[in-house]
């Protein structure tokens, strides 16, 4: 069971390394969107501190969305998706591997760069720590839920826009608790409650989403 998951992760990471432009462009998108906000709303530190959690999280959602359409599309186009579906394992495990690989190349870099961007918003050290933790905890859920949308819109015209329409509403709980954790830390209430709810959502969606995704992929492959 672990073998197939790690085989898929290994393959996808190797592919991602051969095509670094994709990772880098999603990351730059995140950095640029976040950096535009202070220019748009003015440099008052109090205001920036208040807006930082929301801005960083919304930008993280959008950056994740950017890489989602290609999650299955490339494999679908060259026929490897069929072969993955024919592997002698439940397709859900294969998808789990792909989701983890997607998180490693799209979610993890966001978490690593987020504290640097948090400094632009004058966040305290505590808040930066919670921000990093929240993005680390929350982005796997984004990859998992996003995979369902990516599989449902596989091979459709205008799939990218449709994908955001389907997936963004489902991201709301992650956004609320992710931003809420940082916000609570900024206002001194403590973000532990938010973080544990975020962990629960991630746990549930990473466990459940691959199987829904596998069902959607089977429909797309018919």
């Amino acid at each position, binding site marked *: 069971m672990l073998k197939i998951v790690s085989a898929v992760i290994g393959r996808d990471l190797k592919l991602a390394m051969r095509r670094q432009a994709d990772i880098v462009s999603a990351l730059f998108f995140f950095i640029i969107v976040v950096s535009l906000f202070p220019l748009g709303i003015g440099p008052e530190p109090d205001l920036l501190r208040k807006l930082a959690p929301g801005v960083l999280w919304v930008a993280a959602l959008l950056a994740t969305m950017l890489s989602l359409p290609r999650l299955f599309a490339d494999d679908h186009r*060259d026929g490897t998706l069929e072969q993955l579906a024919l592997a002698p*394992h439940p397709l859900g495990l294969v998808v789990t591997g792909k989701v983890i690989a997607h998180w490693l190349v799209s979610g993890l870099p966001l978490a690593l760069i987020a504290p640097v961007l948090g400094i632009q918003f004058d966040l305290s050290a505590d808040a930066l720590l919670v921000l990093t933790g929240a993005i680390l905890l929350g982005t796997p859920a984004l990859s998992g839920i996003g995979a369902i949308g990516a599989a449902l819109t596989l091979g459709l015209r205008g799939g990218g826009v449709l994908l955001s329409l389907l997936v963004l509403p489902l991201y709301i709980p992650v956004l609320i608790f992710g931003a809420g954790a940082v916000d609570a830390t900024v206002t001194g209430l403590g973000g532990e409650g938010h973080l544990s709810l975020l962990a629960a959502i991630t746990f549930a969606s990473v466990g459940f989403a691959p199987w829904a995704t596998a069902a959607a992929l089977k429909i797309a492959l*018919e």
Partner: protein
Amino acid sequence: MLEADNLECVRGERRLFAGLNFKLEGGELLYLQGRNGAGKTSLLRMLIGLLPPEAGEIRWRGMAIDKLADEFRADLCYLGHLNAIKEELTPLENLLAAARLADEILSEDDAIDALEQVGLAGREDLACKYLSQGQKRRVALARLVTEKRPLWILDEPFVALDVAAVDWLAGIISGHLQRGGLAVMTTHQLVNIPAGQVRELRIGG
């Protein structure tokens, strides 16, 4: 061993075929024939379990394939008209990755041997995007050498191959049949397969 019982196929709103039966034993090859759009590829996709039939059942070793699931897929090697190779990876990496995903144990030496057999010696370390169409097809075909599966389902395997490669593939298929394997394939060019019992099935009238 492979049995199709009263299969019916509907694509979109068209009924492509109905009441289709066949039975294939070890050492037998089934040629699927029919004009374009008759449902050859659809039938192959049913046989590999990706397309659920509208009616009827497919059995492998006497058991329905959707019940067998993983066990059936572990006996199956499918080559579609897409090559299922990654352009960014080298032929060697492609072969090794495919084997890992298919749960096959494949050493690097064996993989290089297989690539030599399909005529790709010296190109093992060149990313597949630099290969020609025919060479990419050969990378895909190398899986027939590396994966030891009893059931081969091949969709137009001879397309984009030169004469030498066609002969090589015909030899490989007859070797597979001699070992007691089964094969189902569609093809437009009738190729002489030296060994094994060849049967034909025409679908869509």
